[in-house]
């Protein structure tokens, strides 16, 4: 059985990953759609910015988040005045996870929109469907495999997020100590290796389950589409 500390890390990790996935989703769908369907002058810049979290050291991201959203940060001071605190708080862990995992979510969503037969939009339009209706009734349902895949990748990546999170929100039990941070903490303690190993096994099970769920959901949807 899991100890209260382990349970707390598991609960916190799941909560952070779930919120990060849910909050990222509308932005990922909007950006994925826009990048798939439109050409614009500064597209290269948006693409580079989107990929930046994948190549930047996570600690750098965490530090930048602290500079921007810390209690005295450029944006954080105003949020603080409104009673919203992100640094050293589980909500900050959600923000860090969102930023780190966002590129992984956007790419499959974007590919789904890109590979879709755009003649379907034209047909729906000629039948009398307004563009917003075409998006909701044709494009979005057909992008579901990409959206599911992106969400699971985002969720899994958020579960494993360490560097940016520990730099931005620290290592506070029951507040910001997610599974990876708990593993790190136990490895620093004498006789903590057994607990760390149990959490490693738990991480493996969670990540593996998410990827298997992804496989079956995609299979089911592909059967539905006859692909």
């Amino acid at each position, binding site marked *: 059985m899991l100890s209260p500390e382990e349970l707390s890390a598991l609960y916190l990790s799941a909560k952070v990953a779930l919120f990060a996935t849910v909050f990222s989703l509308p932005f990922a769908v909007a950006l994925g759609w826009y990048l798939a369907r439109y050409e614009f002058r500064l597209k290269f810049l948006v693409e580079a910015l989107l990929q930046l979290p994948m190549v930047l050291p996570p600690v750098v991201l965490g530090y930048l988040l602290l500079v921007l959203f810390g209690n005295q940060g450029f944006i954080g001071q105003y949020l603080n005045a409104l009673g919203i605190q992100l640094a050293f708080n589980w909500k900050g862990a959600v923000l860090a996870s969102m930023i780190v995992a966002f590129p992984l979510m956007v790419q499959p969503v974007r590919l789904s929109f890109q590979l879709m*037969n755009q*003649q*379907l939009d*034209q*047909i*729906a*339009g*000629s*039948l*009398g*469907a*307004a*563009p917003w*209706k075409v998006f909701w*009734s*044709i494009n979005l*349902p*057909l992008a579901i495999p990409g959206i599911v895949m992106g969400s699971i990748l985002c969720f899994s990546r958020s579960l494993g997020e360490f560097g940016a999170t520990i730099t931005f929100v620290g290592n506070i039990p029951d507040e910001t100590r997610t599974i990876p941070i708990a593993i790190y903490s136990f490895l620093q303690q004498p006789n903590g290796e057994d607990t760390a190993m149990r959490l490693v096994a738990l991480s493996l099970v969670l990540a593996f389950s998410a990827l298997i769920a992804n496989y079956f959901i995609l299979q089911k949807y592909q059967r*539905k*589409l*006859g*692909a």
Partner: protein
Amino acid sequence: MLKCDFHYQHADFILNVELQMQQQLLGIVGASGSGKSTLLKNIVGLLQPQQGWIQFNNRILLDTQRQIHVPMHQRKIALIFQNALLFPHMNVQQNLSYAEKLVSKPERKFHFADIVDLLELKSLIQRKAHQLSGGEAQRVSIGRALLSSPNLLLLDEPLTGLDNKLKQQILPFLKRMKQELNLPMIYVTHHLQELEYLQADIVQLNQGQLQNK
């Protein structure tokens, strides 16, 4: 009825159209690359002419001088493409209902059941798009277009890609549509025989210019 006079240019290709459609079925015949699909795409609103106007039943759909451009979904002109593309996440019934539900009940011209009967779709109604043959899919796409209650139906080589046997199966449906539905249609093809079978009035499109045949 349809009246248009416009100029459309893309790269080296120029399409100059002056057309007054009075008949119920107008057939446009032309070789590949003569601009048949481009003409239909301009009428439906997928492409926009650089200059000119398009009018249907005294309603201006496009006038470049007055900067009027009615978007495609408000034109009430349905287009059947060469390859019968159905919405793959819906079955036949859902494909048909999708079009029907886009029209308010008082504005609906055809009953769902009548179109299903006319095109003999009853046995296909629960099937998914990928479970249909090319000919069946094209019948569904025609039914779907009719249920959107268009004022004008454009058919862009609807039998291309089907073998002769399937063509012979679909042509009678198109003839029945002409006879039983009071719906103006433009049928574009490079097979003159199809238009002769349908007893259409025929004009020829040659290098972007319409000529009486």
